């Protein structure tokens, strides 16, 4: 499990049946300083994330346990929105800004 920032989305209309309806986002894994540390990954999303959000990603076999269908070829799922990440007492990731963006988006009621 790791922290990441949503940097994009993926649209794939033709996909296997078990993935029907799952939202796909591109996530850049982060370290404690907020820097990207690995290649970006494509992750399913179960908490309605959007561009720029700092998120908590579950990877590996367990990633599918958050989805409607458990036997699907998925190796990363966004399972939480990070509002606060305290690193040695100071917020290293600008998650508060992401949370405000989230709130604005939800208040605007414009869906995805």
């Amino acid at each position, binding site marked *: *499990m*790791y*922290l990441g920032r949503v940097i994009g989305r993926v649209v794939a209309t033709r996909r296997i049946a078990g993935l029907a309806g799952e939202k796909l986002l591109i996530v850049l*894994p*982060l*370290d*404690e300083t907020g820097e990207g*540390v*690995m290649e970006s990954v494509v992750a399913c999303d*179960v*908490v*309605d994330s959007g561009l720029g959000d700092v998120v*908590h990603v*579950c*990877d*590996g*076999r*367990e*990633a*599918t*346990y*958050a989805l409607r269908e*458990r036997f699907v070829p998925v190796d990363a*799922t966004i*399972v*939480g*929105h*990070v*509002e*606060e*990440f*305290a*690193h*040695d*007492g100071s917020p*290293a990731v600008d998650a508060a800004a992401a*949370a405000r963006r*989230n709130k604005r988006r939800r208040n605007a009621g414009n869906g995805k």
Partner: protein
Amino acid sequence: MKLGLVVGTVVTPVQHPAYDGQRLLAVRPLDPDGAPAQDRMFVAVDRVDAGIGDRVLLMAEGSSVRALVGESAPIRCAVVGVIDEIAVEGRVLYPGG
């Protein structure tokens, strides 16, 4: 299991229900001598009430964590111990002197 250092706490108000009531920690894997390991930072559920600065035992891959959190939870990493001492070949590396 890995040796790790708790470098942060993570708060996720919107999350999958499996994480309700769980505390999340950011853990940086360490070599036994305390140097950062060539590894990424992990997020893990806390089962031992650890805090920032603690050396901990990090269970980092999958199926063994299911024994703690249940069969169908999307949870892969857990902090399962707070380390008091690390010794390699008879030499105590932690706590340092």
